């Protein structure tokens, strides 16, 4: 609880669960959810280093807030792209949306 390594390992574990989810999920929304997990693993690292090692206690929090903003923008754009893909292909399975494959 009072040790930096706990938080770093928690962040790494979230990041790796995210990698697993991206690789094994077959639908696009599932991949997006796994991306959110990876972003949060990175944000936990920022907050932990901010708490234990930083001289300026505001900078890590500000970086975490920026990560949240970028994640919100990414979710909006990706969900609209997924809705468009569903309209055009009638599926959100990532393997069957392969029109650009040569």
């Amino acid at each position, binding site marked *: *609880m009072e040790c930096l*390594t706990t*938080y*770093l*390992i*928690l962040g*790494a*574990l*979230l*990041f*790796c*669960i*995210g*990698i*697993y*989810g*991206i*690789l094994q*999920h*077959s*639908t696009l*929304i*599932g991949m997006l*959810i*796994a991306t959110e997990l990876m972003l*949060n693993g990175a*944000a*936990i690292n920022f*907050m932990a280093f*901010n*708490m234990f*090692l*930083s*001289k*300026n*206690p*505001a900078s890590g*929090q*500000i970086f*975490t*807030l920026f990560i*949240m*903003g*970028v*994640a*919100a923008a990414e*979710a*909006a*754009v990706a*969900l*609209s*792209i*997924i*809705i*468009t893909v*569903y*309209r*055009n292909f009638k599926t*959100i*399975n990532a393997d069957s949306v392969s029109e650009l494959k040569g």
Partner: protein
Amino acid sequence: MTTTISDLIPPIMVAQAAFALMIVFTLSGAFLAVIPKKIVHNILGLCLAMFGITGVYLYLGSQFVAMMQLLIYVGAICMTYIFAIMLSPPLEKELPKRNKLKVITSAAVSSVVFIVMVKMIMSLKFEPLTDITRDWSIKALGHELLGRYFLVFELISLLLAIAIIGSIMVASFVRKKD
């Protein structure tokens, strides 16, 4: 003399139990977010994981970021996902069969990455700073946000505006396929 509840159970033990509970929430939510096939279950798992991360942020000393996490992730992003699912197909009809080789490969890749990361974390020795200023107030955060990081702050708001306009454009004007 009255006995309060803090005499029976020491507060540090309560704090540790709550921390363990938050870790359990985070990890079980994260596994729930990637393993089940139905997307609604995945999104509920994401909500649970974000709730747990809110508690972890509280232990890291920042109430403001914790509240923002709760508002943005649980309140906004999960709701957006649920809306997007409601606008897209009924997924229960066509659950795709899971490719076993893909699952095994991705589990191997992620566990290898995790082992490498843990080895790296363990091999580093971080010297704890002794003269850390503990000014966690929202006031200090606001001064920093509108002083040193002002340009990034403005760029984030511009990015959000452009992203929302762009997503409306992408979702509403669809080219007809011929």
